[in-house]
């Protein structure tokens, strides 16, 4: 990989924007709770690949944007993103050498922490609905992670080949 660090910034920004859009895309009724937490998945991918370039500040900012988009309490997703990305950065050396299935499980744990924080803040803010469906985003993330990281790796390789 010969790319300088500046190249590929646009790919990161673009993927985060797409993730933000996917967080809002309408899903048919029963699938509404099965939405994978796209933003945190994309963010985990980038900090695992470039832990020195992208970090907590970007995670916090994109979490704040998600709060505004979803119309929830300001700071809710920012907090959850910060903690999840901190965990990812803390263990990135181990996470990035894991085989795919093991990495998926580890990402599942990070997403679980993320979802729990979101749920917790909902509870403190007073409008939490407790149901087993609260864990469905984690299951969806387990399915989405291998596909998404494969897609982003492909895109990354292609971009660096042409530029």
């Amino acid at each position, binding site marked *: 990989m010969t790319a300088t660090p500046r190249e590929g910034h646009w790919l990161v920004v673009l993927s985060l924007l797409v993730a933000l859009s996917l967080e809002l895309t309408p899903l048919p009724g029963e699938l509404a709770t099965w939405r994978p937490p796209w933003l945190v998945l994309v963010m985990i991918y980038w900090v695992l690949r470039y832990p020195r370039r992208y*970090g907590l500040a970007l995670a916090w900012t994109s979490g704040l944007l998600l709060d505004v988009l979803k119309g929830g309490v300001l700071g809710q997703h920012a907090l959850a993103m*910060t903690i999840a990305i901190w965990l990812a950065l803390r263990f990135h050396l181990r996470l990035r050498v894991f085989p795919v299935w093991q990495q998926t499980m580890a990402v599942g744990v990070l997403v679980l922490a993320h979802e729990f924080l979101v749920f917790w803040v909902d509870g403190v803010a007073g409008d939490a609905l407790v149901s087993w469906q609260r864990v469905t985003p984690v299951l969806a993330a387990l399915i989405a992670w291998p596909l998404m990281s494969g897609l982003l790796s492909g895109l990354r390789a292609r971009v660096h080949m042409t530029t």
Partner: protein
Amino acid sequence: MSPLTQTDNKPLFDRGPSLGTRMVLLAILSVALMVLDHQQGHMETVRRALSVAVYPIRVLVDMPAATFGWTRESLSQRHRLVTENRELRMESLRQRGRLQQLAALRAENARLRALMESPAKRADRMQVAEILAVDLDPYRHRIALNRGGQSGIYSGQALVDADGIVGQVTRVSPLGAEAILISDPSHATPVELNRNNLRTVALGTGDLMRMELPFLPNSADIRVGDLLVSSGLGDAFPHGYPVARVTRVERRPGESFAQVEAEPTAALNRGRQVLLVWKGGETEPLATETLGGAGDEGGAP
């Protein structure tokens, strides 16, 4: 795994605060934001600025649905459009016929109110807004609208559709707005029974087809099929719009309150358009005529 770039190598000496410190600082910042936003509502200017910045994302997400609607309209066959047009014209005629009666009824109502020396009711001004096809949160019933402060929308404004009250505006930014549906578990609608003016409160349950009326005593005169209309108390909703129809009344002898459920009359999860209501926005010429300006003091707050 691709080989590391130069910048990915850990430098010998870390500059700046450590990872843990940064995490703690950002976490504290988030908590401070949440407290300021949730308990005091101090962050409205920040939120407004940010929501203008991210509004294009909402429009972008809404685009497939909007394009789909537009394509279906432009590709539909001529004879279908003609049939639809004819039906709409018939409907319009029927409704205009009914409106003629309404004018007479309104005049009569104003005269009767004048006799009772109570202020006349004014007609409400309305504007159409479109619901953006975006999912905000599966556990809360919130919707995003395509009109905002620039169209004169204000926080707390009532939303209705063709069949009844939909919800109220919770947040306004210059370009868009957010609203809460009456079925949200944290929403309560002041209502009265259309049949006997019995006043109570209808709570949302998180289910689009069900509302609860938990504050009615066992002896209350309420039956299945009764229509609940907004009572206008609490100043949130204008008086007299349909809210829900009673679907279940259960009186248990051991308990002091009856268990009453109702189904919202408005199409909460269907339909793409809603009406925003300005309370008493239009002055009623008839009312001022008969009352000699007495209608100015009450009617609209």
